């Protein structure tokens, strides 16, 4: 079992209950999409798996390792993250950003001088060609378009040689064309490299198209867990509290062309 989430709760300091009584198991190599409206807890869940958020109670295991302060380096090394805002280091080059994916495997003192062994450069090159960014490894990260930056973010995740990739709304800041590119990329990575991909998405259509399994969240709890084909109107209503389709007003409007 790649990811095992056992009855977790996450309550913030101000009392807000982000995750309540959540249990989940995800198999290796599958592409799972998490749907839910803003505030449903999708980000919190993904970040908790990587250890960026600490859960209030319960346990999470990643490839058999419990997520706790002691194991953060191991867990994070194995479960790479891709972020909505790419979270690259803007002033560094594309290559430098991808190389940071190797930090968890490297001696901290050597990396003090930004030194990486040759194999790391080879791994970075491989990651960059996988995402199609091998032609401009020395450009500054912030000079790229959104879609390109996200691909660099994915390359960084790949460089970690992870067994899991957690993508927190990876296409929320991208246009439709770049979004399809990025999601196809993630899907291919999942299939070709047997990496478990868990991604949160806003767009229901994308989820239906790319995911093997869809998990719907609402107010910190899982309200749906099944195949894309099982995603009916009722289910969507449960997830979003209002069905997205019904949001389009079905009203006869009086329009006057004055």
């Amino acid at each position, binding site marked *: 079992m790649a990811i095992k989430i056992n009855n977790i709760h996450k309550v913030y300091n101000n009392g807000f209950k982000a995750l309540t009584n959540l249990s989940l198991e995800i198999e290796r190599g599958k592409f799972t999409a998490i749907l839910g409206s803003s505030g449903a807890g999708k980000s919190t869940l993904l970040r908790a798996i990587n250890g960026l958020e600490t859960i209030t109670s319960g346990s999470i295991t990643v490839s058999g390792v419990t997520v706790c302060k002691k194991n953060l380096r191991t867990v*994070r090394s194995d479960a790479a993250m891709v972020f909505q805002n790419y979270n*690259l280091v803007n*002033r560094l080059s594309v290559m430098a950003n991808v190389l940071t994916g190797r930090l968890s495997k490297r001696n901290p003192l050597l990396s003090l001088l930004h030194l990486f062994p040759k194999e790391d450069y080879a791994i970075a090159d491989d990651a960059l060609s996988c995402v199609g960014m091998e032609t401009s490894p020395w450009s500054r990260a912030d000079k790229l378009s959104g879609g390109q930056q996200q691909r660099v973010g994915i390359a960084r995740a790949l460089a970690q040689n992870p067994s899991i990739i957690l993508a927190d709304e990876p296409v929320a800041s991208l246009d439709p064309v770049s979004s399809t590119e990025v999601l196809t990329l993630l899907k291919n990575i999942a299939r070709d490299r047997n990496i478990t991909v868990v991604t949160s998405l806003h767009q229901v259509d994308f989820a239906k198209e790319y995911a093997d399994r869809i998990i719907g969240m609402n107010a910190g709890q899982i309200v749906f867990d099944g195949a894309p084909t099982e995603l009916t109107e009722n289910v969507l209503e449960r997830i979003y509290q209002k069905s997205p389709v019904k949001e389009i007003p079905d009203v006869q409007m009086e329009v006057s062309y004055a």
Partner: protein
Amino acid sequence: MFKWKCPTPNGLPSLPLLALVASSLILLFASAPIVEISLDRIFNSWGPLLDFLGYLLVSPDWPYLQQLGAKLLETVEMTLLATAIATVISLPVGVLAAKNASPHPMVYHFTREALSFMRALPELVWALVFVSAVGLGPLPGVMALAFVTVGFMAKFIAESIEVVGEQAIEGIQSTGSNRIQTIMFAIMPQALPDFAGTLFYILDHNLRAATILGLVGAGGIGYDMVMSMRLFNYNRIIMIAIAIYLLVTLIDRLSDILRHRIIEGSKHARTR
């Protein structure tokens, strides 16, 4: 009717702001006598000033030129060395003094207090302290300069670190990097370019500070400068004054060029 541009609900100028500015000005003028501001004295100062300038227009003491050069070199060397040493020390200390990078809140507060203390007294006062400790010469001068510079530089570095974007930090942390790696890869690349400009400003300031440290025997041109003034040795005063001006201007221009190079450089894509 003249309308202010700041948007207030009724279109009239912001009364609290006006009141604040007015009362500040009144307070300033009322307290002027404390520093004995007297327009009278200022207006009548032309005479003595022109007299003094007249005394300066004497032929320079040319034989003194060699010693002048040596002392100036010593001053520049003190500045560069002190600033370099201070930079090396300030980088890790700045990390400790940055709220988002410090290992523990107690370390953060202690470091901030220590830096504040180091900045509290001018270089000249610290130079006096170090002269008592290690004796006369440029060494206490370098120590004093470095000491105070760390106080300022570490603070500036810490402030640059504190405004670094959270997102890049999280991005690096999510790969499993440890504290040092996060600092080197997420924090420093963002903080250092901001800091480069401050470095030159500090270098500039330190040169001026170094020129007077000789007052307490801590090396540099300061001793000669003060002695010539006390002995009314105008032949030397004029040389020293012009030399210092030229030196400071030169370093100023060089710093400007270097700083612009760095800013331009960091804007372009790096080519391998």
